[in-house]
């Protein structure tokens, strides 16, 4: 797969301070890629450099094979951007706001009206199309921002903190729409400091810390890397000597008894089928079998604890 976004040794310095310090990553077409990390780690600066909205100090970035510093109009013509806590002109209606950006995109009148109508329906804002945006909730504004990206028919969508400040239901809706983007073959790059929320939608993630990418890969890869074993499988079963039998399953690093007939196994993959086989093979009764997927929060906290020694616990949320 060819890379849609590619950064090599990308650096941004303000005076002596590095906001982004020599990061490299690439995002393949149709992928949902997450830039995760605490506030001030350099996520937004990275995004702005990809859009040509701030100068690159060193290194380079290519979006759809174009240099955003040299050809910003072409890049911005194909890339949709949802800024951190997106805002619109409050005195204008949703449709008017979209009409203004559509004119900036250079769409002609007929195209404009058709697309605005279509996209407002898609993000479920059609019934408030003629209400001023000032009356909108945060979730509605985020959806309107998504409508703007859809209207552009963007090949790449860059979403900065799309879920921050949203209630759980609005977050779910928004994440659903982001998945929907992926199904339309749009490459999505999103940034967030709320790890567990975006974990569900991201194909791959890059963990940012102080301007550098600390970790990059799929969530389970990271889990293997950091936690050693990423999957915790809970088994509730009756039978003799189950703990020893479970321990010998390949990939299982430890088994501990958490109660009567309850075991917690740590493994580097989902070992539920093997565990079930073992229990049944030993003539035991399998009551319950569940798996905790590795949580980004855990990975993140563990990783930075390792980095910083035991003392400092970072607030990731």
């Amino acid at each position, binding site marked *: 797969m060819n890379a849609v976004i590619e950064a090599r040794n990308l650096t941004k310095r303000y005076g002596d301070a590095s906001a982004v310090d020599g990061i490299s990553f690439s995002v393949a077409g149709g992928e949902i890629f997450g830039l995760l990390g605490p506030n001030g780690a350099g996520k*937004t*600066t990275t995004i*702005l450099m990809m*859009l040509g*909205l*701030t100068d690159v100090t060193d290194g380079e970035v290519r979006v759809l094979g174009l240099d955003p*510093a*040299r*050809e*910003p*109009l*072409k890049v*911005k*013509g194909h*890339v*949709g*951007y949802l*800024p*951190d*806590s*997106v*805002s*619109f*002109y*409050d005195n204008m209606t949703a449709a008017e706001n979209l009409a*203004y*950006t559509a*004119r*900036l*995109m*250079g769409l002609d009148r007929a195209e404009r009206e058709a697309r605005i109508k279509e996209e407002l329906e898609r993000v479920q804002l059609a019934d408030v199309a003629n209400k001023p945006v000032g009356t909108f909730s945060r979730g509605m504004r985020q959806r309107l*921002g998504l409508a*703007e990206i859809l209207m552009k028919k963007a090949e790449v969508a860059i979403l900065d903190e799309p879920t921050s400040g949203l209630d759980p239901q609005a977050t779910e809706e928004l994440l659903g729409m982001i998945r929907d983007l992926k199904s339309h073959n749009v490459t999505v790059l999103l940034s967030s400091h709320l790890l567990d929320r975006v974990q569900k939608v991201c194909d791959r993630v890059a963990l940012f810390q102080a301007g550098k990418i600390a970790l990059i890969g799929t969530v389970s890869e990271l889990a293997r890397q950091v936690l050693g074993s990423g999957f915790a499988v809970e088994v509730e079963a009756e039978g003799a000597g189950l703990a020893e039998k479970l321990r010998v399953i390949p990939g299982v690093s430890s088994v501990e008894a958490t109660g009567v007939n309850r075991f917690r196994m740590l493994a580097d993959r989902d070992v539920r089928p093997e565990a079930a086989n073992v229990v049944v093979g030993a003539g035991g009764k399998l009551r319950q079998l569940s798996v905790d997927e590795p949580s980004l929060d855990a990975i993140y906290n563990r990783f930075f604890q390792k980095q910083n020694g035991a003392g400092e616990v970072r607030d990731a949320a």
Partner: protein
Amino acid sequence: MRREGSPFSGLGAVTTKELADHLSSARMRVLEWLIVLTAVAALIGTIQQVRDTVSEDPFVFLKLFTEARQPLPSFVSILAFLIPLMAIGLGFDAVNGEHNRRTLSRVLSQPIYRDALLMGKFLAGLITLAISLVVLWLLVIGLGLLLLGVPPSTEEVLRSFAFLVVALAYAGLWLAAAILFSIVFRSPATAALTTLGLWLFLTVLWPALSPGIAYAISPPHPLYQLLNQPDPDTLVWEQGLARLSPSTLFGEVLRAVLNPATRAIGPIFLEQLEGALIGSPLPLAQSLLIAWPQLVSLIAGTIVLFVVGYVVFQRQEVRA
């Protein structure tokens, strides 16, 4: 490094949107009424005065603009005061307003350059000012026709039209200044206060300060003091310093354009007046020639302020 694509793409969209915002804003309403009411008040008084005293003047219509009747100042001096106020009112939150509403990054992520945004805002402000000034100009001509009962001559119309152009250049200068400060300061209140402060300083304080500074830079020769005459060197300094203020420039252009009898702006020697028919009117072209440097300075000042704003804006960080 060369960037690609036109800096003007999106200019039309920005200009139309900003223009619509200006024309429908409450702020604009207030400014319009302020100008119309003061202007009408000044005009009514002036028309009375013109009727009483200068019925023989061939340029009766121009007197409408320049004549003052106590306690109100003349129409043009009111405008000289109100035009900057209006321009500043339109421009002081041009860029920082977008910053504070957090709309800037979203707008700039559309396929346009910052050039288009800034230029569009300036053009929309200028068009708004032009509309207001044209309306005001028509109002003066109309009131003059009604209340004086004399139609203006071609030259009077041309001269008053020249006044319109100059007023627009003057407005453009203050608009550019206001936009510059709206880029430099993140808070609209600071930007507005700074621009207003600069305007008051240049309009009220500077004309009072410049003679003193000129005196300090180039003290008059004792001979001139003995004769109780001004030293030409000091005068040149004084005038040069005073002309740093746009309102001085504006006043000088108006004096040449609206008063055909004006032969020179500033001090002249007696021998330069040899053969001149003092008090007889100059042709329009000659009057314009007198005012040309001032008019060019106003336009140049506008461009300089706009360019400074442009450079600062290009280097500014987009993130809120």
